[in-house]
């Protein structure tokens, strides 16, 4: 690998790493939001039955 290759690899790891982490945060956030909405809907149904 020449020196430019090392610099390129650093960029791939740094921005790739940050991107993967942000992507995982957004994915986890969407999944939790879905759970939260489902729970709220269930609560609303429960309260309307009572």
């Amino acid at each position, binding site marked *: 690998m020449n020196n430019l290759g*090392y*610099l390129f690899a*650093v960029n791939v*790891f740094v921005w790739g790493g940050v991107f993967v982490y*942000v992507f995982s*945060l957004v994915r986890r*956030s969407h999944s939790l*939001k879905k759970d939260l909405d489902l729970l709220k809907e269930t*609560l609303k149904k429960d309260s309307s039955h009572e």
Partner: protein
Amino acid sequence: MSEVAQETDSPGYGLLGLAGAGVMTALAAIFIYVPTEKTEGIIQRIMYFHVPSAWIAFFAFFIVFLCSILFLWKKEREWDIYAHASAEIGIVFCTLVLITGPLWAKPVWGVWWVWDARLTSTLVLWLIYVAYLMLRVQSEPGSTRARYAAVIGIVGFLDIPLIHFSVLWWRTFHPSPKFITTQGLGTGNDPSMNITLLIALGAFTLLYFLLMSLRVRLERMKDEIDRIKKERLYSH
């Protein structure tokens, strides 16, 4: 609508814009503005990624240290949330330090890794906070887990002064600090190198705050779900 749900609807576009602008400015400074260093050549530009990654890892673990103390003192869940979020971000950037370091070392030293004091103590720091996150994943949620995590968060931070002073106390492959020196900040460096490093440090710091806001929001959503589940359980 609850406070958490409202927060999830507003993902902090101001901070996202600021961090994005910071990163773009840093990349322009690194690849266009700063001249190529004479001794190492183009490879020296790795410093503008390696040093800010290390700064964010240390800063993140300092926040873990601070919030862990505040949690043990005040027993408020809020401090535990901040400590947990910061530890995860710290691990991401500490991993980047451990990857970018060898990629810089190979063409300059001729080897990917040496077991010198700076490199070894940084690896130990990474292992400590991986253990911190593993403890949080493996044990039951609650105040006991938070207390144990806080203790690891505080003790683990003690490795950071050791990492910083390792290059001064022992003979190491890793060079001494070029920016923070006993003569002052950035003394002896070309001003454009200092400016570029400062821009990169600023951009990475903005990125840290953006990631923190996303990660803290996630933890609050988990709490909200747990709260609703508990309420349902007790109401039936």
